[in-house]
């Protein structure tokens, strides 16, 4: 007799929208149905079922090949590498829950290593800008109920946050937005006519890499300054003036910005200009902004690292106290300068996601991967420690993109004796302490 279990209000551990209305049906510890999730969230839940893509036992490289070993063997070897390292680099941490992130800080502090999370190649520049000029922000619930103008800048939620528009920013009915989509104006600023732009009321197609210029042109026009040019960033002045009027006359506006600002020329300066525009608009109306965070708990990684060390990412413990310097202690820069001797990657795949020259250096030195699935990083690693998947096979807390903490549920058991990320790191801490005689 097959045992069927139903779960309601399950939280999706994929993107920063952290949808909390999923329904999961389980048959003998195998997920057989996922309702309400987007295509990516659905794929994530199904990917937890045991398959040829998933590790169920720890692995260690022997004569060039990954071979199954016991947990003790794998953990002892990993701890030995970390304890003997002069400057280990630990990176990832955004696709796991907050307890594991807390343990990450402890482990890297003991090892005198460098700790970075995926914000450094995501919204790290946004954090730099927010540290410089602040950030008027609110929760997604407030936006849903109040915002009559939604501005997506360098962000394509149809692809990256597929349910964002239906849950918070466009189609959903809100307390003051009773007609949902019809009660909101959607504006997209993007060099491509993205699927989000195709659904918008207005699309501003700017030249790639000229966001900074456009933000400042809008700011100038907001102040009533006349610009003696026909276009800025490839956008006709007439269209920019039309945009300014819409922005100034809304009741409650929100800027959702994405990696179109942080990954292009200007990086944190683009976000700085965006925040300055919002400050300007608050002279005329109510306007807020929120970064569209990618990994489901990258906000949590920034928050946990900040309350533990004072800094959100790119933290160095080599002097026994935390130091912060993106551009020096960020994972890509550490790898490029070869200033590390071991890497511990947790819940991330930098081999796929980092530029080529950073990956080349990463592969030159011992690599430990805490990862449930086969990825280019884990397949090139020397040790693979397969965890239970947070938010599916173990519970934990994650922070939504608006920094609202949400408790994630466990819906199924992990395969074999896979432990949660925080348990694996806890064991590594114990063993490293033992080896260091602490």
């Amino acid at each position, binding site marked *: 007799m097959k045992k069927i279990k139903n779960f309601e209000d399950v939280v999706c551990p994929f993107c920063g929208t952290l949808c909390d209305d999923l329904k999961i049906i389980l048959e003998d510890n195998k997920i057989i149905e996922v309702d309400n999730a987007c295509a*990516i969230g659905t794929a994530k839940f199904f990917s937890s079922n045991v398959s040829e893509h*998933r590790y169920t036992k720890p692995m260690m490289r022997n004569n060039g090949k990954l071979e199954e070993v016991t947990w003790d063997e794998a953990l002892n070897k990993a701890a030995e590498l970390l304890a003997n390292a002069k400057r280990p680099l630990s990176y990832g941490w955004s696709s796991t829950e907050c307890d594991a992130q807390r343990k990450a800080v402890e482990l890297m502090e003991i090892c005198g290593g460098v700790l970075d999370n995926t914000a450094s190649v995501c919204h790290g520049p946004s954090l*730099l800008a927010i540290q410089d000029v602040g950030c008027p922000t609110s929760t997604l619930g407030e936006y849903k109920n109040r915002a009559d103008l939604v501005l997506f800048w360098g962000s394509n939620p149809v*692809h990256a946050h597929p349910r964002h528009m239906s849950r918070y920013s466009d189609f959903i009915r809100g307390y003051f937005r009773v007609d949902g989509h019809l009660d909101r104006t959607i504006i997209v600023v993007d*060099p491509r006519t993205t699927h989000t732009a195709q659904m918008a009321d207005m699309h501003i197609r700017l030249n790639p890499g000229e966001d900074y210029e456009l933000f400042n042109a809008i700011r100038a026009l907001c102040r009533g300054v006349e610009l003696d040019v026909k276009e800025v960033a490839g956008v006709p002045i007439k269209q920019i003036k039309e945009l300014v009027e819409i922005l100034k006359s809304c009741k409650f506006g929100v800027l959702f910005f994405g990696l179109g600002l942080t990954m292009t020329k200007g990086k944190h300066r683009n976000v700085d200009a965006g925040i300055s525009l919002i400050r300007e608009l608050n002279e005329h109306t109510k306007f807020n902004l929120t970064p569209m965070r990618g990994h489901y708990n990258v906000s949590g990684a920034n928050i946990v690292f900040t309350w533990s060390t004072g800094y959100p990412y790119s933290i160095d413990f080599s002097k026994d106290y935390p130091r912060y310097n993106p551009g020096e202690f960020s994972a890509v820069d550490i790898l490029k300068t070869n200033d590390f001797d071991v890497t511990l990657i947790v819940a991330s795949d930098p081999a*796929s996601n980092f530029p080529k020259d950073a990956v080349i250096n990463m592969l030159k030195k011992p690599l430990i991967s805490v990862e449930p699935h086969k*990825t*280019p990083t884990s397949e090139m690693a020397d040790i693979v420690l397969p965890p239970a998947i947070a938010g599916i096979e173990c519970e934990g807390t994650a922070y939504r993109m608006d920094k609202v903490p949400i408790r994630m549920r466990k819906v199924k058991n992990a395969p074999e004796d896979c432990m949660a990320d925080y348990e694996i790191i806890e064991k590594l801490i114990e063993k490293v302490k033992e080896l260091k005689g602490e």
Partner: protein
Amino acid sequence: MKFFLTTGRSIDQGVALEGQKLGRENVKACAICEFDKDDFAKLDCMIGTPVKVTTNFGEIIVYSQISEQGPHPSIIFIPMGPWANAVVDSETYGTGMPSYKGTEAEVEVVKSGRILTALEIIKSYK
């Protein structure tokens, strides 16, 4: 032909990364270069013909496609992954963030050329 290369998420890339990173799903989702419709016409090739994308930082062969998210003249889009990262600028300019968007790129149609899998690309770096 010269282009601005931008990289980023796509929903197919997102689906493929959930437990499919070593498989063909990932190749189909990410080993592609999306062109503006009019730019693609100038390439004078069939959809799916391999193209070599060359930048100051490397080169990669990927499948050509007409973008559903156009028009975007003179911009090409490769979804984030090992294919895009073979040709982007790793310089972070002191921020920690590499320049994943806005790399100048040259594109040529290649009559023959194998599209590598994600793992084959990474193994070639070892």
